[in-house]
């Protein structure tokens, strides 16, 4: 299982489940599982060309990741952040 951290920008999808656990061998598989649990969530983080949107940040084990094929291991933590400045 992979534990996911979901930022405030996505709480309208997940409600109080801000630290869900999902099954997935890659970031892409984990996001697909998240989208099954919380429909619509994935497209707001990942575009239709499978690219992480410009102001979203993904980390696995503390390392930045922008490739959906990045492997995940049992016990990994996938962190999703929104990162934007400006008014």
């Amino acid at each position, binding site marked *: 299982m992979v534990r996911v951290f979901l930022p405030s*920008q*996505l709480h309208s999808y997940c409600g109080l489940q801000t630290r869900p656990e999902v099954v997935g061998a890659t970031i892409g598989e984990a996001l697909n599982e998240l989208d099954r649990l919380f*429909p*619509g969530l994935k*497209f*707001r*983080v*990942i*575009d*239709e*060309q*499978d*690219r992480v*949107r410009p*102001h*979203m940040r993904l980390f696995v084990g503390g390392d930045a990741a922008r490739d959906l094929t990045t492997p995940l291991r049992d016990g990994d933590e996938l962190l999703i952040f*929104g*990162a*934007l400045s*400006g008014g």
Partner: protein
Amino acid sequence: MAVCTELLIGTRKGAWVYRDDGARGGWTVDGPMFLGEIVNHFVADPRDARVRLIAAKTGHLGPTIFRSIDGGASWIEARRPPAFAKAANPDQARAVSHTFWLEPGHADEPGVWWAGTSPPGLFVSNDNGETWDGVAGFNNHPMYWRWAPPDGGTPDGALLNQIVVDPRDPAHMYLATSTGGVFESLDRAATWAPLNRGVEVSFLPDPFPEFGQDAHFIALAPTRPDRIWQQNHCGIYRVDRPSDQWRRIGKEMPQAIGDVGFTIVPHPRDADTAWVFPMDGTTVWPRVSPGGRPAVYVTVDAGASWRRQDSGFPSDQGWFTVKRQAFCADRGAPLGLYLGTTGGELWMSDSEGEAWRPIAAHLPEIYSVTVAQGMD
């Protein structure tokens, strides 16, 4: 039974609804809805009062469509928002940044909606906005990358900023883009051709190209749908089909004001009457009210002359403008005109533009003002 008018307001930071008291004398407000979402368009379905769509995104999150099928009492998200097909060629890998325009389909096609996006893309829904599909006739047109070059467009990206369906024929459509100008389809969006003859481009070597214009806004005269009004980046135009020759009617505007602006509003019952809200397009294009004195200009003779209407607006130090979707008319008698400003003010006139009064202030920058009208 009173006519109930609702103004659906989309802003840079959310959506609001202003509801009149039946006499346009007082307004109640609902909102904010979707606080923090960038709402480019908020539109009610004239065919079904229960259906409303909102085109939204946030600074962080990608674009989506929110839908209501109960007149705005509750909202759900589109199951499949507008999205381009996955591209084999990475140089042509388009992703919808935001949906800019939502257009209800023809009266004979209930449930059909059209959407225009940035980068320029045309999408259609057959289920009241729940799922959307790309329209290959435009998105995969052999000329697409010349009509919509990746380096063109507005500060917020290149736009397919408008879709218009001929009320007499659902197969006859027009669209407007910020990079290619106006296009026409006679086969329900299967094929498209430029419709820009006579429209000047001040920013290209050829001032009258077949395409490359920045068509800020087009509108059919409701009582004469062969008449198209256009507020272009470079002037105000009109064409009466089947002619394909646009005429620059903005040349009749006062020289000190010019004919640059974002939008144009036709009268719903008089094909010779329309309103514009000019902005300063000189020097570095401040895009504010010329001289800091906001005004609309009206023509009642199809553009042969224009008359200033500024009663009620600030007479000095008023530096706002009105964006593409933020000026509209209802169908009341007398007519109601409504506009939202870049300064977050909502204004109305119930005297065909002769006098203006504020409805609201201190909203975020207003992107969209549309009317939902029904019976109480």
